[in-house]
């Protein structure tokens, strides 16, 4: 880090700082995909021309969001589709767990022990939708999926780090208020000492900048930070005079890693407010697709052979020990690439070679049923608490305030090493770990927790990963090749998007393949005419 705060700040330096803070080219690139930049990119889903009497058969492998999207669009244009799904359920990594649901994790099978109540559900996979994910929101709108606001950032939640504040949890509100106070003070004071600038602000700029720094940090008239009601009151404030909390010292704040990471989580393009999520669970989207679809979805069909034919594709699959083969004009394949790699096929060697280099996303989520909504006693309604322990996060339900019970997210880790540690545990050990670590955020946490579920996505049957892991190099050399069809076979899913792990990636990847099919169909018709 350069010493921005020791020397006066010039406009150039200021712009440099801003670029580092929020608008690096990488972030711009990510934002552009979804139209966050000033070029509007309205969701205009691929509209397939009706087949008008022609017969086209499409086999869709996998009943996740990309497969359902493809089936929905294709059948509306008159294509006859069949979805083959290997697992016991529809939805893929859109997995909302409720009372009695079977969790098919290799080695750790579970049945969801939550009470049978509509508000007691856990989104173990996809959980939130940013407003610029216009593809998935298009289907929410057209299929009538009711949405609620979802909160990633709640100032009343906690941050906990063993290295800071004696390991005691601190309200995010307090931490951020103090941190901003110090930053504001440093900015304001360094800006006023304006000598030897290589290109100084003019007076108006300077004045405005100091006003900004003052507002940013809530400084007093002397541009000094002396605490703020943004951190909440130590006492009083309603019917008696407010007493402010004493600010924590900057060195103390810096001992916590919150300021270098999680504090900025909700600045990430896909994590920034306002976020949404379907009422009653993310699988409302899956149910909405199923209300419309006439395409059959066959469960327990495990693909064992993919053969490209001169004019189509032949798929062999196992169902209850019997082998079946079906032919189709096209195959849209949403099977995770790491599993396609193990399926016998005549797919081109360079195509399969890329699949073999993709990493398996390792990600763990734990859901806990609490017999009392104790977080509401601590003024928490929705949002995320952060800890440096393996559980990383605690989420509080954004819905059903004041009900008797609630489902917490008790752990969410996406660091591969952490997820490996959870995977190596028995289910009971995972719950015990989640409770022990959660106790550092909420005293007596354990006494409220009745039961729970744990999902290590790298162990989930028929998936063995959550979100393909592309290295930057592989993305450069392999993405386009894998995105292009091999014969009449298309590999799709969020794995073939720049946003693996997001439903938007799944929708857009399906649209991409459908646009290509549309083009080929137009050419076929044109050739005949």
């Amino acid at each position, binding site marked *: 880090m350069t010493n921005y705060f020791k020397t006066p700040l010039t406009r150039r330096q200021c712009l440099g700082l801003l670029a580092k803070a929020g608008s690096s080219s990488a972030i711009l690139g990510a934002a552009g995909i979804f139209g966050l930049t000033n070029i509007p990119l309205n969701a205009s889903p691929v509209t397939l021309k009706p087949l008008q009497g022609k017969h086209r058969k499409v086999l869709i492998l996998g009943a996740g969001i990309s497969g359902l999207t493809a089936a929905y669009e294709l059948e509306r244009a008159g294509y006859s589709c069949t979805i083959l799904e290997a697992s016991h359920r529809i939805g893929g990594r859109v997995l909302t767990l409720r009372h009695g649901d079977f969790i098919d994790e290799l080695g750790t*099978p579970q049945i969801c022990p939550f009470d049978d109540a509509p508000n007691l559900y856990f989104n173990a996979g996809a959980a939130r939708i940013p407003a610029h994910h216009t593809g998935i929101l298009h289907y929410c709108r057209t299929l009538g999926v009711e949405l609620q606001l979802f909160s990633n950032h709640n100032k009343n939640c906690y941050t906990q780090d063993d290295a800071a504040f004696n390991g005691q949890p601190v309200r995010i509100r307090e931490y951020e208020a103090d941190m901003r106070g110090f930053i504001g003070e440093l900015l304001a004071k360094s800006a006023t000492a304006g000598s030897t600038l290589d290109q100084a602000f003019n007076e108006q700029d300077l004045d405005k900048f100091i006003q900004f720094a003052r507002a940013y940090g809530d400084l007093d008239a002397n541009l000094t930070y002396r605490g703020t009601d943004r951190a909440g009151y130590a006492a009083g404030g309603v019917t008696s005079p407010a007493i402010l909390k004493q600010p924590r010292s900057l060195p103390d704040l810096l001992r916590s890693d919150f300021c270098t990471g999680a504090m900025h989580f909700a600045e990430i393009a896909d994590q920034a407010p306002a976020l949404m999520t379907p009422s009653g669970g993310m699988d409302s989207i899956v149910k909405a697709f199923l209300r419309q679809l006439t395409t059959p979805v066959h469960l327990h069909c495990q693909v064992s052979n993919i053969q490209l034919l001169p004019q189509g594709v032949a798929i062999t699959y196992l169902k209850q020990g019997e082998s079946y083969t079906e032919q189709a004009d096209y195959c849209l394949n949403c099977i995770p*690439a*790491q*599993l396609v*790699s*193990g399926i016998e096929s005549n797919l081109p060697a360079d195509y399969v070679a890329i699949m*073999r280099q993709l990493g398996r996303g390792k990600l763990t989520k734990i859901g806990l049923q609490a017999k009392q909504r104790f977080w509401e006693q601590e003024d928490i309604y929705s949002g995320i608490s952060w800890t440096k322990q393996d559980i990383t996060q605690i989420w509080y339900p954004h819905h059903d305030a004041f009900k008797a019970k609630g489902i917490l997210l008790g752990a969410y880790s996406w660091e591969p090493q952490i997820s490996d540690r959870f995977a190596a545990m028995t289910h009971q050990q995972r719950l015990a770990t989640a409770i022990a670590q959660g106790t550092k955020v909420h005293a007596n946490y354990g006494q409220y927790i009745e039961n729970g579920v744990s999902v290590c996505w790298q*162990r989930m049957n028929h998936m063995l990963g959550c979100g393909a892991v592309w290295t930057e190099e592989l993305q450069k050399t392999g993405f386009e090749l894998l995105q292009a069809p091999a014969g009449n076979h298309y590999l799709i899913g969020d794995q073939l998007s720049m946003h693996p792990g997001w439903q938007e990636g799944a929708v857009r990847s399906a649209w991409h393949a459908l646009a290509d099919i549309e083009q080929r169909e137009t050419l076929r018709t044109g050739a005949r005419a």
Partner: protein
Amino acid sequence: MNKIWLVFMLLSSTALADSKQPDARYCLVCHGSAAQGNVAIKAPNLAILPDWYLRQQFIAFRNNWRGNAADDAHGKEMQAVANTMNDAEIDQAIAFIRRRAPVKLPISVNTTADIQHGRQLYQQCQACHGANGEGNAQLHAPPLAGQHNWYLVQQLSAFKNGWRGNQSDDSYGQIMRQFAQSLANDQAIADVVAYIDSLPPTQPLVRTTQ
């Protein structure tokens, strides 16, 4: 008492019926559609392994002889599955794998390995694993010919670094570990595996009921 009844009710629900998949289809998720192995999952070729060896390895995982090391994520995956299976289910899984029709695997040649050096190193292997890497049931030594080279490298490294063959009651593993430790470095492992890769295809497996 109520709790026991509740557990019984849950176990007999349709949800649990889903967990007991007929014909052990779990195997093929990781090990490939014909149990031919899958490099993306680091899952070995099971089709070339005889029944007795498959059974022995299920036991090795259940006994914590394999999958014990904290950073052996792949071993732990298999161990988690083996721990959920009883003897009858293991027999069922092996029978299921035997019913898969074999598939031809592409040959991948390691051009940086010294096959002649590998042949010399293999002399100490052949006493147990056979001159053609066909294995030896009496000595509990599995066939090597036809196994993926990346898996052989991975397992020789695992024996060398103590992920396998490191437990006092795993006598066969301990023997193998001594031999693996005699391989000086990664190049030696690559050389001997390249030689095993060059061995002609073995005879069709002799099925034993051992």
